[in-house]
C-alpha cells in the first residue's frame, strides 16, 4: 500500500514496516535544510567527490557531469561543500530565506 501524507492511523501497515521499496524518495528531507548548497558551474571540474559523499543522493549527474542539485531531498548538511577540493571551492552554503521553507509532510 502507498502511505500518503494524510494516511490515518488505521490504514498504516501493521508494525510500522515499510512495504514499498524506495519510499525514501517520497520523503522531502529538503524541508530540514537551513543552508542551501549552491554550485558555481564555472569553477566545478566534475570530479564528482560531492556526488560520492552526498548522504541523500542529491547531486544529480548525467553522463559524468553534474546537472544540478535535488533540493527536494538535499537536507543542507554541507558535506558537498566540505569535500569540494580547497583549490576549487565550487559549492557555497547559502542561508535559506525563512519564508521559503515549506511545511513538512504533515
Amino acid at each position: 500500500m502507498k502511505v500518503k501524507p494524510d494516511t490515518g492511523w488505521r490504514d498504516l501497515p501493521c508494525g510500522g514496516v515499510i512495504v514499498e521499496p524506495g519510499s525514501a524518495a517520497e520523503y522531502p528531507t529538503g524541508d530540514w535544510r537551513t543552508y542551501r548548497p549552491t554550485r558555481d558551474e564555472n569553477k566545478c571540474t566534475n570530479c564528482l567527490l560531492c556526488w560520492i559523499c552526498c548522504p541523500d543522493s542529491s547531486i544529480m549527474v548525467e553522463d559524468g557531469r553534474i546537472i544540478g542539485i535535488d533540493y527536494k531531498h538535499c537536507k543542507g548538511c554541507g558535506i558537498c561543500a566540505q569535500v569540494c577540493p580547497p583549490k576549487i571551492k565550487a559549492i557555497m552554503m547559502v542561508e535559506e530565506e525563512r519564508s521559503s521553507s515549506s511545511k513538512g509532510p504533515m
Partner: protein
Amino acid sequence: MGKVVALEGNQAAALAMRQINPDVVAAYPITPQTEVVQEFSQFVADGLVDTELIAVESEHSAMSACIGASASGARVMTATSANGMALMWEVLYIAASARLPIVMALVNRALPGNINIHCDHSDSMGARDSGWLQLFSENSQEVYDNLIQAVRIAEHLDVRLPVMVCYDGFIISHAVECLEVLEDDIVRNFIGELEPVNPLLDTDRFITYGPLDLYDFYFEHKRQQMEVYPTAKQVIVGIGKEFGSLAGREYGLYEGYLLDDAELAIVTLGSSAGTAKEAVDHLRSDGLPVGMLKLRCFRPFPNTEIAQVLSRPKAIAVLDRSVSFGGFGGPLFTEIRSAMFENETSPHLLNYIYGLGGRDIDVEDIEGVYKDLQRVVDTGNVERIINYVGLRG
C-alpha cells in the same frame, strides 16, 4: 487426557518448548531461568527439535536475534529473568512495536539492588508498558499451558504481539509439581503452522522493519498499536476456551475463586494465588464470606472485566509482589484502583506489598489480610491504605 508427570516449573517450560519446536531460540542463561535454556539445549543436542539455538553473548543480543529471526518469518522463543530482561530493555519495545510474535518465558526474579536472585515481580512490572502481553502462572501446570497458548495468541493475525509467560522464580521454577502434559502431536496440531506476516525472507517483496519514524507518523503508529490490546483480550479468551476443550483446563483473563458471593476479596498474581485459595478454604469453613481474584492476564489489563467481577465485595486487598517507588502503592493496586473508578459504589480498597526478594508468604499471612478486611468492614475505618505483609519490624 494427557499423562501426569512430576517436573520442576523450568522443566515444564522446556518441555512445552520442545513440543512447540520453535524455529529459533536465542537465549542467555540467568538464575533462576538457566535451567530452561539448559534443558532445551539438551533437546537440541539430542536432535529432538529442529530449532536453531543461538547462543548469544548477552540478553540484549538474545532479544535482538529473536527480533531478526521473527521478522524473517520464523517462530521464535526465548527465556530470561530480572537483570536479563533489564538488559533486553530497549529491544523489548522494538519487538512489540514491530508486532513480532515472540514468546518468552519470564522467570520472575527481583531486579536488584542489593543482589538478590529470588522471586518478585519487579522485572515484569517494569516491562508492563513495553507492549508485550503478560500472562501470569500460578503453578507449573499453568506455565506449561500458558506457553502453548502464548504461541497461538502471539501469532494470531488479529494480535501479532510478543507474549511473556511469567512465573515465580524458585517458588515455581525450581519446585517439583505434578502436571498433566499433552501428547506432542496434540500440541503441534493446536499451535499449527506459523503464518508469517511481511517476512524478510520473502525475496519477492521488499520490506523495511524499524525505519526512522518521526513526528509525522510515529504517533499514528502508536495509536494503531493501542488498538490491538482490546482485541487481544478477546483472542486470549477464545484460545483459552479452545485449549480448555482440548486439555480439560479452560483459561480466561482471570480466575475467580469463591468470588460470586464474597464480601471480602483478595486480588493477586502468580503462585500466591494458590496460597490464597488455601486461606479462602480455611476462612470459608469458619463462615467468613471471602473470595479471591487471580489475575492471569496483566497485559492487556482487563479493566472493565475486573470492575464488574469486583463490584460486590465491600473490602478488597490487592497483593503486590513489587513496588513502584514514589508511586501510590504497587503497580497492580494502582491499576485495580483505577479500574474500580467506573463502578457506582466504591469498596474499601487496600494494598498489601509482600514477598519482595523471595520473602515467603504463607496461608496465615493471607488469612491475616482477610481479617484486616473484616475489621475494616466492621468499623468502616481504614487505618492505612498501603500495608506490608511479612515485613520485619
